[in-house]
């Protein structure tokens, strides 16, 4: 005897309660604190801030905890919170040239003013699992000394002084910077919107797209002109004060790629650029972003658009992991009404197929 199933509301409540229980895990195990996540899983927090488009370590750590370590779920939480925040305006452009660098490298020159500073990095480590880390391991304190007050000019500025690299493409100073979170995206998109889209984009997606360019899908001969990581001041122009007020410092990673040179009938050839920027220490993200940024400039640089990484609509429509996961996972929602329609159609077609099978015609010749 069929009875209509009810009680969906209670089922959902119970499911959420069960999930909260699972999230806590074994109660004999100490609960993880936000400070622990922010300090010791710092790179996860950095990623959530970058792709969540919100600089707040504590909130990002909370999101990571609430999401049980699922970073895309954490990014979603941060984005949803960000959407509720009041907006005061835009900061002054951040001057990464004045960054207090913790790490700064260039692969285009052996040595550069200010030096190659390796900083904290996994680079050149041997990827051997270290059981010592499992049991309250305390690394030794690093040696300290006075920081050399050397300037660290951007490598791209050095190249630019001789005109060897194109100037950073500037938009008209009067054109307001577009805001993806406030206006719908329209194609073709200008570079400001493209860079915004890439800054929020899923790291894995950008990584794959960047990788594809290196493997020949729209090759643009990249060199890592410079990668720098450190703190920069954020300033906000206060109308009442009449000058820019410092709001504080944030940690940023910046990557400048130096790419395939290009000239024209009226211009001598010079290197072209790709740019990447992210919160915290996110080298993979900024490098991939710079590769894809350069790739997407194909149109404005007069290059043939052949590869997926050069296809603006393709890259920008699929780079947002919150959107992507929403739609992929929405397949879990009930679809039985449409499925019913398809079943009906299919049954009808099968019936007609069976009826016409008797009247089958001999195979047609394929050749002309």
């Amino acid at each position, binding site marked *: *005897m*069929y*009875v*209509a*199933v*009810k*009680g*969906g*509301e*209670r*089922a*959902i409540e*119970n*499911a959420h309660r069960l999930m909260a229980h699972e999230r806590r895990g074994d109660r004999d195990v100490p609960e993880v604190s936000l400070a622990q996540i922010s300090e010791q899983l710092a790179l996860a927090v950095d990623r959530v801030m970058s792709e969540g488009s919100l600089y707040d370590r*504590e*909130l990002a750590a*909370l999101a990571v905890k609430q999401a049980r370590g699922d970073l895309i779920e954490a990014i*979603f939480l941060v*984005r*949803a*919170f*960000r*959407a*509720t*925040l*009041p907006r005061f305006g835009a900061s002054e452009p951040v001057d990464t040239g004045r960054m207090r660098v913790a790490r700064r490298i260039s692969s285009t020159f052996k040595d550069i003013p200010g030096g190659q500073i390796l900083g904290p990095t996994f680079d050149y480590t041997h990827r051997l699992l270290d059981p010592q880390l499992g049991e309250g391991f305390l690394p030794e304190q690093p040696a300290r000394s006075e920081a050399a007050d050397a300037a660290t000019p951007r490598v791209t500025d050095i190249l630019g002084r001789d005109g060897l690299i194109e100037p950073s493409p500037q938009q008209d100073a009067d054109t307001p910077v577009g805001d993806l*979170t*406030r*206006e*719908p*995206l*329209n*194609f*073709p998109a200008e570079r400001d919107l493209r860079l915004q889209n890439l800054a929020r984009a899923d790291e894995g997606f950008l990584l794959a797209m960047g990788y594809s360019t290196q493997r020949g899908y729209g090759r643009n001969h990249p060199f890592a002109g410079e990668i720098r990581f450190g703190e920069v001041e954020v300033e906000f122009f206060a109308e009442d004060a009449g000058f820019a007020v410092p709001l504080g410092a944030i940690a940023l990673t910046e990557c400048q790629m130096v790419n395939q040179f290009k000239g024209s009938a009226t211009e001598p050839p010079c290197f072209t650029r790709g740019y990447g920027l992210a919160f915290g220490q996110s080298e993979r993200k900024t490098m991939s972003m710079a590769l894809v940024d350069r790739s997407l400039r194909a149109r404005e640089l007069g290059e043939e658009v052949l590869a997926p990484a050069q296809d603006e*609509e393709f890259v920008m*429509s699929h780079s947002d992991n*919150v*959107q992507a*996961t*929403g*739609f*992929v*996972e*929405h397949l879990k*929602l*009930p*679809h*039985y*009404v*449409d499925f*019913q*329609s*398809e*079943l*009906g*159609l299919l049954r*009808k*077609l099968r019936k*007609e197929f069976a009826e016409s099978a008797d009247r089958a015609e001999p195979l047609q010749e394929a050749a002309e």
Partner: protein
Amino acid sequence: MNAPAYNFAYLDEQTKRMIRRAILKAVAIPGYQVPFASREMPMPYGWGTGGVQVTAAILGPDDVLKVIDQGSDDTTNAISIRKFFAKTAGVATTTATTEATVIQTRHRIPEAPLHAGQVLVYQVPIPEPLRFLEPRETETRRMHALAEYGLMHVKLYEDIARFGHIATSYAYPVKVNARYVMDPSPTPKFDNPKMGNCPALQLFGAGREKRIYAIPPHTTVVSLDFEDHPFTPYRFDAPCALCGAGDAYLDEIVTDDNGSRMFVCSDTDYCESRQAAGHRGSESAAPHKERAHG
């Protein structure tokens, strides 16, 4: 940490204003997809954020809200959305179609005829009817602007050549106000006739794709077809097993391991109302017995 404070129906007033402007534009150009700056909502893209934003923008404190998914008020996502509005707007909610002023729906149009003053808000995954024929947004925009719909008919022609029928059973494309071709959202083609000359306002929200479109009341809506292969709504072979309705869209329920099946109204409110009025189908027991799962 700053605890967020939420506005009535979650969205801030500026966002609501932006969405209402888009809605007005959509109503002024029936069937045309108006781009809007979809906000990040607390539920995932693809789970109704477009519909929720439209509803949040038009909801007032005196509105009565009904939310259905697959025609039922009791499916998981309908419950989740109804709770969301109960929490953020405190509006009265109902399962009765005739009592609602705003109905948010996914994949069905209610069976009970709508009346003037009601608003039906559809959740739309892919607003562009040409999307699977032409993936480029720049090109489809041009096709709509120039009313170049040949490609759409090519697809229908191809279906007839291959299957003998137009092989679209849901999200069946329509022409609105004799101008724009529109995707009615993944409602079964069975529901298409309800959209034409409807006394209620129909609004369509696609959050992830960032489009809003509309059919104003009493607008012509014609399902695309050929003169010699006219649109025919889907018909079921038998009436609802619970209430006996012969004109409603039915869900197929598999009742045992041997493949026994039963067909029951998808619109739960319609079915229950009919049973309350004394109508019976072949399989009905007392109408309101509940059995909870999970």
